[in-house]
């Protein structure tokens, strides 16, 4: 099958890329260092895997580094091939442009997921060795959320890449996505809500509801909400179940909509 062939090819290319390997190693070392640095020193102190993940690794490393790796893996997916000319070789074969975009999301997303699992291996060893209550289930589950976060960013940046006629534009798009979702989302949306305050008052929703909506709309905070609920053993249950469902729906949206929008532009272009 055509899409699968492209996915396999891109998977292979991505896991062989030096930049990707370097980022995974960096990520792995940082997480391991974190795990080591914040390990409990007192004999009696209990330090749970869950707390380490949600309060330290999750907040400072996963939500910043994993989206970055996702953007790096995705931004040149289509535009890079377009600029170098290998896209001509690819489209000489019986692939549709939809196969190309979606195959790349699948292949590069899978490569990134593998990289995240590999990146969490070394920290797992540190945690097992450290005097910490190591909860393998929580750790593994958390890794799945981290991988999902990466895949969403791969999908968004592959979409940008498909819509961009040059590498430079794709890079700008990828950096923009990262800056928006990882660095500026909170302040920006805060400003926005503040600015349109009077309008909000007129709407039949509360400011709190809008804030929740904005929080789950950002894939980074959406994954954070879900993974924290998971670590608190309240995934899709408890008080925040509606919020979690919205967060999951938004993640699906961000995985599908950008590649499809990018495909729309890519499909109409002369190459």
């Amino acid at each position, binding site marked *: 099958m*055509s899409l699968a*062939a*492209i996915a*396999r*090819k891109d998977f*292979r*290319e991505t896991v*062989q*890329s030096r930049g990707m390997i370097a980022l995974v190693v960096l990520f792995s070392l940082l997480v391991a260092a974190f795990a080591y640095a914040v390990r409990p020193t007192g004999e009696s102190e209990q330090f749970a895997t869950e707390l380490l993940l949600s309060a330290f690794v999750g907040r400072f490393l996963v939500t910043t580094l994993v989206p970055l790796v996702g953007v790096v893996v995705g931004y040149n997916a289509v535009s890079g091939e377009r600029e*170098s*000319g*290998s896209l*001509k*070789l690819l*489209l*000489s*074969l*019986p*692939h*549709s442009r939809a196969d190309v975009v979606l195959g790349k999301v699948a292949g590069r997303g899978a490569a990134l997921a593998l990289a995240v699992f590999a990146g969490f291996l070394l920290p797992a060893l540190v945690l097992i060795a450290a005097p910490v209550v190591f909860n393998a289930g929580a750790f593994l589950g958390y890794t799945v959320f981290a991988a999902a976060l990466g895949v969403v960013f791969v999908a968004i940046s592959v979409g940008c890449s498909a819509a961009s006629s040059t590498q430079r534009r794709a890079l700008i798009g990828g950096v923009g996505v990262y800056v928006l979702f990882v660095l500026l989302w909170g302040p920006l949306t805060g400003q926005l809500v503040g600015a349109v305050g009077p309008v909000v008052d007129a709407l039949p929703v509360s400011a709190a509801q809008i804030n929740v909506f904005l929080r789950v709309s950002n894939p980074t905070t959406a994954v954070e909400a879900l993974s924290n609920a998971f670590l608190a053993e309240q995934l899709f249950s408890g008080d925040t179940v509606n919020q979690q469902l919205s967060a999951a729906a938004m993640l699906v949206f961000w995985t599908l909509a950008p590649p499809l929008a990018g495909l729309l532009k890519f499909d109409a272009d*002369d*190459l």
Partner: protein
Amino acid sequence: MTAIELRGVTKEFGDVTAVRDLDLTVEDGEVYGFLGPNGAGKSTTIDMLLHLVRPTAGTVRVLGADVATDGVDIRRRTGVLPDGFSVYDRLSGRRHVEFAVESKDAADDPDALLARVGLADAADRDAGEYSKGMRQRLALAMALVDDPDLLILDEPSSGLDPAGAKEMREIVRAEAERGATVFFSSHILEQVDAVCDRVGILRDGELVAEDSVEGLREAVGGEETLEVAAAGADDDAVAAVRALPGVSGVTRDGDELVVNCASDAKTDVIAALEDAGVAVADFHTREASLEDLFLAYTEGDAASSDSEEADSGPTGVDPTDPGPTADDEPAEEEVDR
């Protein structure tokens, strides 16, 4: 059945017209050489066959199907060696061919294909380390996967040494014997001479000649090329020569005029030059080669091609009437006769 059929195809990029009202038919089993200088619109035409580029007007059909709607099915039965492509640097040669086999749901042995194009020894190396010629061979191996009904080769010999170009021709010939249609472009006539059933010459986006190689030879049969060492020849002198009956083309190459003309017009040419006040230092004749004809079609004379080209209304092209711009293209009048 027709392998390739273009009807009234025009492609504009902004205000540049790359291909103008092109009609082109390639029959099943034919080996068709698509000639023209760089920038004539060959690659744009091939990109339209692959639907990488969409025509501004006209229809493009390949293997009996519309490229706009059935592109994937068409490419399942087509092998393509694109121009200006690049390889996947981190994947080996074998992986490339495997990828093509997988993409076409074929059962070919990648190593056999690599051996056929002379890359057996380099199969395990990353294609990023390949030379230009090796990349060209690799793309050919990918194009040959699944014995395609149609081979589209864009400048297949580029980057190849003479031995490589010869191997390329042998493969083209073998594929044609198998029954495949071969459509390939080149800006070098010698490469197509040996293998083509028919050639078309593209110039500034228009087909200016289309015939068998023999037909083109006959067309220049009565012609000779007169090389005149005439240092002082100005535009007026060139125009005077061009106006003579029996003269089909004049090009100025430094101090030398190259005149394509009927054998009995030679003395008129010299006389006309002397009448125009040009001192003829030396002249000699040689028989026109296909290369001369090609140059006459693709370069014409600089004076007439620039300004009038744009408004000479193209009226469709067929093998017996190759010149939509016949009015200002003396060379084409010759073929008309």
